[in-house]
């Protein structure tokens, strides 16, 4: 199967600190891949490189066969790990903004998702709770018909109920044409979300494979595998 993402010998440093250290990762199309790792393992750095917010790296990084840049931004939908919407915009204005910004954005789909979450389109972003903002951001990210969805810690710092809603959004909008890369340091309870996982530690992928294969091989839950790999 063709790879949507290929990293080979990928290294990135911040001064003397190596964030990625010869990372090897191949992600096939039509998968939901969990990028598991502790805080500071290099997950966010990898994601920022994929979406071209970080540009200076060594090694090979290909998104749909191309180096990250203006062209790949058209096919990658990114959800950062922090608030990134204009706080003064209303929910509806966010939809309009994304509609103008990304040619693959489907406004009807966004409105349906937002409606099903019970968000009022007239509410300003700044008036929403953290969980609501997270769900709005995720809805906007998934309203794009992107080839690759890159979600940085969408499950962190939200209550269990919101986490379930977010997982449902991800699963509902997964199609075989797209690939979803989700970073998380929380493993308990999110296992059913992934078809594949890659455990990242010290800037490298320490283990990669399908969830079924890994569980079969190790004979334990992902969380226990993670604890065994990342000591």
């Amino acid at each position, binding site marked *: 199967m063709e790879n949507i993402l290929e990293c080979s010998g990928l290294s990135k440093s*911040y*001064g003397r600190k190596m964030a990625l250290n010869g990372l090897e990762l191949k992600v096939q199309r039509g998968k939901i891949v969990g990028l598991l790792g502790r805080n500071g393992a290099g997950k966010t750095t990898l994601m*920022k490189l994929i*979406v071209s*917010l*970080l*540009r*200076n790296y060594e090694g090979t990084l290909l998104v749909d066969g191309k180096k990250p840049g*203006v*062209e790949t*931004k*058209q096919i990658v939908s*990114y959800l*950062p790990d922090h608030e*990134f*919407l*204009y706080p*003064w915009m209303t929910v509806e204005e966010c939809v309009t*903004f994304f509609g*103008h*910004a*990304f040619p693959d954005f489907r406004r009807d789909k966004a409105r349906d998702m937002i409606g099903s979450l019970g968000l009022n389109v007239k509410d300003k972003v700044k008036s929403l709770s953290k969980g609501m903002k997270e769900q709005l951001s995720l809805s906007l990210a998934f309203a794009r018909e992107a080839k690759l969805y890159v979600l940085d810690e969408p499950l962190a710092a939200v209550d269990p109920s919101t986490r379930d809603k977010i997982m449902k959004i991800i699963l509902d909008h997964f199609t075989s044409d797209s690939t979803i890369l989700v970073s998380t340091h929380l493993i308990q309870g999110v296992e059913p979300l992934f078809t594949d996982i890659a455990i990242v530690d010290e800037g490298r992928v320490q283990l990669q494979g399908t969830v079924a294969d890994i569980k079969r091989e190790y004979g334990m839950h992902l969380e226990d595998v993670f604890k065994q790999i990342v000591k």
Partner: protein
Amino acid sequence: MILVHQFKLECRKHLAVFGSLTGLSALINLYFLFSTQQDLAFLVLTANMVIGLLVPLYIYTDLYKEFFTGVMPVNHLLPVRTSSLFAVKSAVFILGSMTVWSTTLLEIFLNPAGLYQMRIEQSSSPALGILYLVLSKLLSLPAGYALIGFALAAGKRFRKPQLSHLCIVVLLAGGVAAQFTLAVQGSWHWSIGTSSVDAFKQYANLLSVTPVFRVMQADINDTINWLTVGSNVLVMLLAGSAAALLLNGRGYEL
């Protein structure tokens, strides 16, 4: 199309600030025009000067947040070059700055003791004087934003914040100082951020300078200094090209 919508978005984002400053400046200049209380003139001139300082300060802060600290990464996810984002913002700021500045024309043209009726109208070529008045201001703005863009993008090359900020200060201060030297050459003394009917105001980047000569020129057109306009064009081209290269390059990271 993305850039057109981005332009509209930026216009909306900055409308309140530029609208307020334009309104305030218009009120001040109208008051000055019709008021017979000349003792308030100093206050009015000071208010004009403060507005003249607030506009570039506001613009610098916004560009710094967007292109240096990257507090609003949503714009950087758009499938457009970073230099295009910068150009769109600059275009909006040029429009906003010119709108605020246009209110000062009330005093220049309508006041019987103002620059136009006192000097430009009697000059060898009033059309040339008006052209210089507008063109010198208009071209100083893209030069200013290009230099800011260059300084911010160059500052991003350093990992240590102290070095980054030092780089920004050196490039901005150095660029403006070089242009300032050109603007004040030949003058007896000068003042920053003021205006007079003695001579045309010069622009050293975003800094406005009024040169004063020992002997007042009979024809105000003799105080036209195309070198300052030329230096702004040069800075716009050089700093603009350098900023575009740096902003689109691998070394620019948020």
